[in-house]
């Protein structure tokens, strides 16, 4: 029994431990994971910026129907098991006796409620069910086999379905029906609901339901959950306390219910201050809002405040990548930007070693925007394509592109006589970005090109890209740089508006051709075709070849000019906290930051107490 609940159990407020666990809990064998079984207790203090960061707990907890393990294999978690026939028929088996955090059973009804009462309700989901639930635009067939078994069936393969359930930001296909029914007019009493709507100051029941049912961002303390910790503080607040879920489904090999850590205390505040607060020992495990720049400062206070600073590797395809906008509105520029020689020239013209040395202490990897060596899909050639520093070749290529005329000061001119100045736009004010651009600017000056950095607010920045006003932007590279072939390779093809190198093509794809522009270049079109192939693929081998081809096209065509990747993320770990990996990959996707390393297995090694 967990000491934290001992009293509640004794007074009968909670059932005993064996009543709380499912019949078949998920047993984690610490030893085999190379970890030490621990003892329960303690509070994990973390520092966050604002209320949106509540979702960090959901990320860090990483309890999903199915999850990726550290080797990026899909394993059942909340599900006891699942069956997948040709990526078309998915059968899920729930754990018998699994309960929500309020002690109510978790059953097929919760899936049904989501599917029938939420996903298919036009008021709650005006645009229909989540895209992950659509294969080729078709809805699945949903069946309840028995209270612990459900099945989704599509006519065509839907290989993205399981990864989307295991994603850091998962697609929720179940909801605590017993709780939410009180907000749904189909089930709730009319007067009762009207009163609730009034008390919450909302317009109608759909708004109320929407608000009460947010699972990803656990703002509602009353919403039952399956996660290891549940929020106990109603917003607005600056200090959120999460408590362990007494019905959590994971146990260690000794049969001890996880998580080890009793509480999470999340303190909100100005993000600039977080490094300083961390250094004064105010957080137990923290990576968010601290940067590589802060490492020295943090390291200096290590002893005094009993913590360790570890360096994890960031999981972006590039810490910063220049993104020439192939859809730029300016016709002259668009023509130049679409010329692969121009993109290669710019890539060759960046002195990545210098940047690495000045800004990253030589610890980053000078690489194009591609997958990281940790990924099974990695090839050295992708990383090295056009990343050697060769200004002479760059100049030669630029002359070929048609930028061979120069003005009095030696700067290149566009064919129409304008100076070939490039305004590189960035979102928000990030000193590292500014510095990178400053250094890149020095390098490009040697190519006869001047660049200007123009940071703007994130959404203004995006809007300008979407409308084609931006010639070139700079942002992080691939979000998921350690994919396996099971992940959808959508980031490598023009498939989303948020891909800054071809956002209008992406929009065209996203909107099914109603907005944006159709792709009118062969290689990107080929990438799209490949993406299509992946979506209809049925075997991992087939997927791997698709991935390989897409990666090599991207590397060869330099659609995005990656500068460095594998940059370091400082992670501050309390001196007494155990089981936190010394070095690992820190990324949102895949991995949910800490989530993949299972923070519910972290514990405090304190002598007494």
């Amino acid at each position, binding site marked *: 029994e967990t000491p934290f609940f001992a009293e509640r159990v004794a007074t009968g407020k909670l059932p005993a431990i064996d009543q709380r666990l499912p019949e078949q809990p998920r047993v984690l064998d610490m030893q085999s994971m190379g970890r030490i079984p621990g003892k329960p207790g303690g509070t994990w203090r973390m520092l966050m910026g604002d209320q949106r960061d509540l979702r960090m707990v959901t990320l860090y907890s990483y309890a999903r129907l199915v999850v990726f393990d550290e080797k990026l294999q899909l394993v059942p978690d909340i599900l006891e098991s699942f069956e997948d026939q040709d990526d078309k028929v998915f059968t899920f088996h729930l754990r018998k006796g699994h309960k929500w955090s309020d002690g109510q059973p978790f059953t097929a009804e919760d899936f049904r409620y989501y599917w029938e009462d939420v996903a298919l309700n036009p008021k709650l989901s005006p645009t229909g069910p989540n895209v992950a639930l659509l294969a080729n635009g078709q809805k699945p067939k949903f069946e309840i086999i028995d209270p612990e078994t459900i099945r989704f069936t599509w006519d065509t393969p839907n290989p993205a379905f399981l990864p989307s359930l295991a994603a850091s930001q998962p697609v929720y296909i179940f909801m605590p029906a017993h709780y939410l029914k009180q907000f749904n007019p189909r089930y709730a009493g009319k007067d009762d609901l009207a009163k609730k709507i009034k008390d919450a100051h909302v317009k109608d029941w759909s708004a109320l339901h929407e608000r009460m049912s947010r699972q990803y961002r656990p703002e509602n303390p009353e919403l039952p959950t399956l996660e290891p910790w549940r929020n106990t503080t109603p917003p607005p607040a600056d200090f959120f306390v999460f408590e362990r879920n007494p019905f959590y489904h994971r146990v260690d090999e000794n049969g001890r219910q996880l998580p080890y850590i009793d509480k999470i205390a999340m303190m909100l505040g100005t993000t600039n201050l977080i490094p300083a607060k961390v250094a004064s020992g105010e957080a137990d495990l923290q990576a968010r809002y601290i940067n590589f720049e802060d490492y020295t400062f943090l390291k200096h206070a290590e002893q005094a405040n009993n913590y360790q600073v570890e360096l994890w590797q960031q999981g972006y395809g590039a810490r910063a990548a220049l993104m020439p906008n192939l859809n730029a509105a300016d016709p002259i520029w668009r023509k130049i930007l679409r010329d692969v020689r121009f993109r290669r020239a710019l890539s060759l013209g960046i002195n990545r070693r210098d940047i690495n040395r000045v800004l990253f202490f030589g610890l980053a990897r000078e690489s194009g925007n591609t997958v990281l060596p940790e990924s099974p899909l990695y090839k050295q050639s992708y990383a090295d394509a056009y990343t050697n520093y060769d200004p002479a070749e760059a100049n030669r290529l630029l002359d070929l592109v048609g930028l061979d005329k120069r003005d009095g000061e030696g700067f290149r001119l566009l064919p129409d006589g304008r100076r070939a100045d490039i305004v590189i736009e960035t979102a928000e004010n990030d000193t590292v970005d500014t510095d990178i651009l400053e250094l890149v600017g020095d390098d490009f000056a040697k190519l006869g090109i001047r660049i200007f950095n123009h940071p703007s607010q994130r959404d203004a920045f995006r809007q300008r890209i979407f409308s084609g006003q931006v010639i070139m932007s700079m942002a992080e590279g691939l979000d998921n740089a350690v994919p396996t072939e099971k992940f959808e390779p959508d980031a490598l093809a023009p498939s989303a508006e*948020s891909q800054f190198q071809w956002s209008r093509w992406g929009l065209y794809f996203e909107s099914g051709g109603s907005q944006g522009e159709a792709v009118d270049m062969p290689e990107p079109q080929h990438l799209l075709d490949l993406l299509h192939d992946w979506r209809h693929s049925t075997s991992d081998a087939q997927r791997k070849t698709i991935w390989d081809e897409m990666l090599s096209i991207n590397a060869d065509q330099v659609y995005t000019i990656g500068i460095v990747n594998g940059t370091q993320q400082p992670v501050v770990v309390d001196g007494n906290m155990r089981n936190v990996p010394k070095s690992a990959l820190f990324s949102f996707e895949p991995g949910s930051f800490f989530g993949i390393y299972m923070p519910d297995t972290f514990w405090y090694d304190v002598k007494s107490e």
Partner: protein
Amino acid sequence: MLRYLIRRFMIMIPTLFFTSAIIFTVINLSPTDYFSNYVAELQAQGEKADMSRVEFLKREYGFDKPPVERYFLWVGGLLHGDYGYSFEYQLPVKDVVGDRLYLTILVSFSTILFTWLIAFPIGIYSATHQYSWADYGLTTLGLLGLAIPHFLLALLFMYFANVWFGLSIGGLMDPQYLNASMSWGKVRSVLAHVWIPVLIIGTAGTGAMIRTVRANLLEELQKQYVTTARAKGLHPFRILIKYPLRLAMNFFISDIGSILPSVVSGAELVAIVLSLQTTGPLLIHALQTQDMYLAGSFLMFLATLTIVGVLISDIALAFLDPRIRLQGGAR
């Protein structure tokens, strides 16, 4: 007098109306809105926004209506004490602001008190010892407070308060009290923290205040009635208190209206740097995320505070200064 009051009140109404219009325009100036902002933030992190939810929310908050209509909806709400709804917090603005308001008021009033407690004696001393070394020294000290940018000062203070006194960095209280209800421990913790922001916000104000006290007093000190008082044989200190200071006070009373808002907004930057649980960071954040009803109602609140402050100071002045009181606002 009454007539004067009524007139003052009448003038207030169009002022408030215009202010609300300007505030509404100002917060709607930005070409984007909360929702695109929200989507942008999410995508920056690699997350995906559920577009159907966004559409849902947009309709919910009347973003399909023209701005003018939204303005009248908003103002109409304000008149009924409905301050609107925060997108970010998904709560009525009133609930979001909640406790922060009290802390803001605490910080602001402590600051004003601090400023006055320091600035008045120094200003008086400087004025009565014009051109002495002490005058120069104290003025310089006050100016120094004015000259060092707030945020830098805050940073330095915070760092050294942590290094030397082990005070937790930022915030207005130790974390464990944040959600706790009122208790002695909480009060003590707040008091242990509040001095830093008060000192920082106060230093700038103090510098300015010293200078105004000094200037005003110098002017009053030359007046003939001071000599009259001396001719009565009054002690110089009593003279100072009773006559020039009393008249110089008028200046401060007439300034009350702007003191509070200026402290509140002067505190904003500091509050961000120090991560105070006051309204400042909330406001800035709301502005940056285009959480427009939160920002708008809050600004309106501040503006009303100023306008009412000016009104109060006018009334106070009318009560204190017989010339205004008896001559019916001939000002």
